[in-house]
């Protein structure tokens, strides 16, 4: 994918994130929470969009994005793994390790040095980064 394409795709994703944040306000989430930036600035709009995610965690999602099935959902009770969030994300059925930051933004093992407003945004960014490759468990 050309860089221009990748970036325009990311901008497209931003629109969705911004809409989600707006929905958060409409649903009556505290405005301060819904409108709060992540305090982070990685130069990617997708990263800096308001943290619309309350600490109780985001809702499940399941969609096809650029040909890949991405889905995420809260883990079953007791499903915390190494102190990470109670939320699991998958790309074509393979788990994408994600983590929630203190400011409620998210990162994944595929994009570990930039933050995203939602697990869905992290999953979409991972799809772009993977360029069709499959996730594999990290060899240890």
């Amino acid at each position, binding site marked *: 994918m050309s860089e221009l394409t990748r970036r325009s795709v990311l901008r497209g994703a931003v629109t969705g994130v911004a809409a989600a944040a707006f929905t958060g306000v409409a649903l009556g989430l505290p405005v301060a929470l819904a409108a709060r930036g992540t305090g982070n600035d990685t130069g*990617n709009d997708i990263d800096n969009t308001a943290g619309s995610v309350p600490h109780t965690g985001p809702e499940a999602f399941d969609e096809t994005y650029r040909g890949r099935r991405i889905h995420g959902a809260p883990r079953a009770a007791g499903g915390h793994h190494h102190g990470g969030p109670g939320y699991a994300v998958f790309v074509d059925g393979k788990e994408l390790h994600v983590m929630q930051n203190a400011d409620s933004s998210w990162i994944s093992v595929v994009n570990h040095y930039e933050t995203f407003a939602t697990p869905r945004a992290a999953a979409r960014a991972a799809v772009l980064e993977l360029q069709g490759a499959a996730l594999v468990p990290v060899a240890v």
Partner: protein
Amino acid sequence: MAVRQNQANLTAAQKRAFTDAVLELKRSGRYDDFVTTHNAFIMSDVDNGERVGHRSPSFLPWHRRFLLEFEQALQSVDSSVMLPYWDWTRDRTASASLWGADFLGGDGRASDAQVTTGPFAFNSGRWAVNVRVDSRNYLRRQLGGGGRPLPTRAEVDSVLAMPVYDMAPWNSQSNGFRNHLEGWRGVNLHNRVHVWVGGQMGTGVSPNDPVFWLHHCFIDKLWADWQRLHPTSPYLPAAGTPDVVDLRDTMKPWNDITPADLLDHTSRYTYA
């Protein structure tokens, strides 16, 4: 005396010695152990639980120890080798000599971001990415692909001017020098450079790209520069902080070294 140099000033022979030693560690399997260790901390360091290598005050001493261990491994191959640093405020484009075929190799190609030049190109037969998060076993880069340029000298200086090392809650939300340098907050220095390089450098297995060491060597130098600018500013926190490495707590995975042991680097190496 052991001197870590700016990579832009290395001679051809020094570049060759460095990449040869890196390749030898790769061949013996020791290189991949470093990648595995780094990823284990990347995945387990969390804002609301134990955190040692990242998003915490010990980000700087942890990586200082990690780099020393790697440098010693290089020296076990070739005793003349020191880690060089990449000053990304000066060498800020894909055409910098850093990315030459005689050193780290260049940008990834358009189709799949695969690095095809230099000693770490997959085609060279000596650099397979074994510790990985996806099925691709070749080194990848997308220099500048994130769209945001590398940090400027003015941005670095603005972070070096911060007088307090770190602050509660001692994580990715903290104010202070450490977190602004690490990049979870503010102008974002360290994290942004990982993203600028792209490919494996943007992932939890970032040390698969040898530029990891040159990037972190510069981060280590910036810590030393900050200490010189703020001689009375201590490492924080001092003691009794849950989930975080205090000044005299030992750090995993070594369990025999504390931030206090690492505050003065000059007995081990200096920066030119």
